[in-house]
């Protein structure tokens, strides 16, 4: 019974936040709605990445490519094969990105330590190059798949920026809930165990390699679903959404928010997306400089302000998970 109350106490703030977020469109301009939609999508993508990056300690610099597999699958099915159903599209996206993540895991886990990072980076760029060079992955003479629209849900839906935002919010909440379930489960604990001490994990009977593959497949599949949302919302998906730079920004999001914590990566995704937007509002040309400085400052912050960084993480930390401070 105590459990029920403490559970309610934990869930209530989240529920209030979600309801408030759902009602936001009544206060916002169209442009703000669209920006927030984008922020939610990147929040979900960063949270998906962090399942591998923060929870399992697999420093992947190629996850934007897995999101890209989702985005391209959704976009191509819609534009080339006229699949309109959201449910069918998401099913296909999940299948395609799970398969791609599995291949990604099997190759990248051959490399150890820092080499794993190099290999993920190269694999990610391979997908971007494929998107750049292969004509099948381009539509209407563009360097991208264009003409993607919001899919149909099977019942009457009027898409406008407000409803798109609300719909994406619902999907993202479901995704985040799934991620929380994984983090809180025995398997989630085993992922953290494999991150902390692989030798000991195998001495305790765990097949560390399998858990690592599982982490990449889970996080890659969720990334793929976020990538599909991105394609629906942006109307196009291009090689630049898939490449190394995009993967780097995903990692930045996860770390800024607090990699390995419960909600950190999601919050980081939202914050960095907003920062990027306002930076490019201020100066399109100098926006990369601002993002670059943000990267460096974050790296230095971890070093010089461990207390501040860990306090921030403490705020975002759920009881079952501990950030590697």
């Amino acid at each position, binding site marked *: 019974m105590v459990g029920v109350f403490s559970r309610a106490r934990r869930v209530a703030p989240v529920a209030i936040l979600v309801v408030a977020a759902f009602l936001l469109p009544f206060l916002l301009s169209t442009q703000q709605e669209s920006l927030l939609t984008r922020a939610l999508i990147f929040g979900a993508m960063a949270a998906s990445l962090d399942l591998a990056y923060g929870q399992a300690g697999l420093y992947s610099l190629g996850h934007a490519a897995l999101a890209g597999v989702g985005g391209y699958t959704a976009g191509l099915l819609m534009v080339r094969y006229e699949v309109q159903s959201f449910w069918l599209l998401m099913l296909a996206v999940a299948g395609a990105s799970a398969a791609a993540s599995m291949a990604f895991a099997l190759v990248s886990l*051959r490399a150890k330590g*820092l080499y794993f990072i190099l290999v993920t980076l190269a694999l990610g760029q391979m997908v971007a190059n494929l998107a750049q*060079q292969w004509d099948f992955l381009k539509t209407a003479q563009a360097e991208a798949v264009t003409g993607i629209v919001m899919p149909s849900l099977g019942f009457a839906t009027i898409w406008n920026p407000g409803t798109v935002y609300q719909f994406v919010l619902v999907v993202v909440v479901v995704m985040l809930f799934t991620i929380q379930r994984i983090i809180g489960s025995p398997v989630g604990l085993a992922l953290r165990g494999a991150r902390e001490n692989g030798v000991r994990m195998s001495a305790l009977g765990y097949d560390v390699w399998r858990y690592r593959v599982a982490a990449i497949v889970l996080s890659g599949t969720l990334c793929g679903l976020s990538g599909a949302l991105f394609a629906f919302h942006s109307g196009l998906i291009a090689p630049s959404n898939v490449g190394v730079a995009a993967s780097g920004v995903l990692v930045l999001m996860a770390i800024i928010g607090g990699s390995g914590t419960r909600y950190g990566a999601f919050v980081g995704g939202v914050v960095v997306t907003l920062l990027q937007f306002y930076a490019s509002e201020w100066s399109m040309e100098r926006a*990369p*400089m601002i993002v*670059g400085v943000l990267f*460096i400052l974050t790296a230095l912050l971890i070093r010089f302000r461990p207390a501040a960084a860990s306090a921030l993480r403490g705020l975002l930390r759920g009881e079952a998970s501990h950030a590697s401070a």
Partner: protein
Amino acid sequence: MQVVANGVALGAVLFLMGSGLALLLGAMGVLNLAHGAVYMVGAYTTWTLAISQGWPLVGAVLAAGAVCAVLGVILERLFRVIPGRPNEQILMSFGLIYVLGNLAQLVWGPVAKSPFQVAGLQGAVQVGDVAIPANRLAIAAVGFAIALLLWLVQDRTRVGAMVRAGMDDAEMTRALGINLDRVVLAVFVLGSAVAGIAGGIGGLVLGASTNQPMDVLLLALIVVVVGGIGSVPGTLVASLMIGLLDAFSRYQFPEMSSVMLYLLMVAVLVARPTGLSGRVA
């Protein structure tokens, strides 16, 4: 023949880049993904001096090497203040790529510089009945001269011995009282200078552009993964393989050329995860 010359020239540039990256990673455990950005600085510096200011190419390339050596000192400082963990190194590297790339755009403009046209290297050298473009020949010559030099440094000097020791067992080396920090500095400076020179001579065929930090980095890291660490010959063979494969696939299947390189990497990883030279990573 033209294709082979292109491949060997690219291979020479990649060797210079790959060996720097591999040294830092293998011997020092430093993941400096900004190594390609150093290359870019070398390329632009050479462009300014040789093309814009009319210096002789040799002087311009050496000056680019010097500028990048200084940049290496700054990089070493930045990487030293962050602890040697992947998170911070990734963030620092990406930050440097963005900042240096954007600075280059500010200074040299958004339009890429076309391959450097230098007097004396425009023609072709006739070998038997084959004509080899002089600029490719120059790149290969400089590249392999530096390769030889690097191999001598690693094999014959005190710093080289420390690097080799660090590669074998960093903890043991530290326990022996060898100051690895100074070795790291030396490797950063040397690696950056070589990257600057690579940018300078590479500019003869590749020009200079703000995409280079990423593009060159990716090629270099494929070299590292394919070649394995800790062996100059391994890196050399990998660079030549990749240079030639790139040249041939551009010629044979332009649609898929860059994907070929990655497929080679995947194949090597699956067959020999430690790379061609077979050292345990």
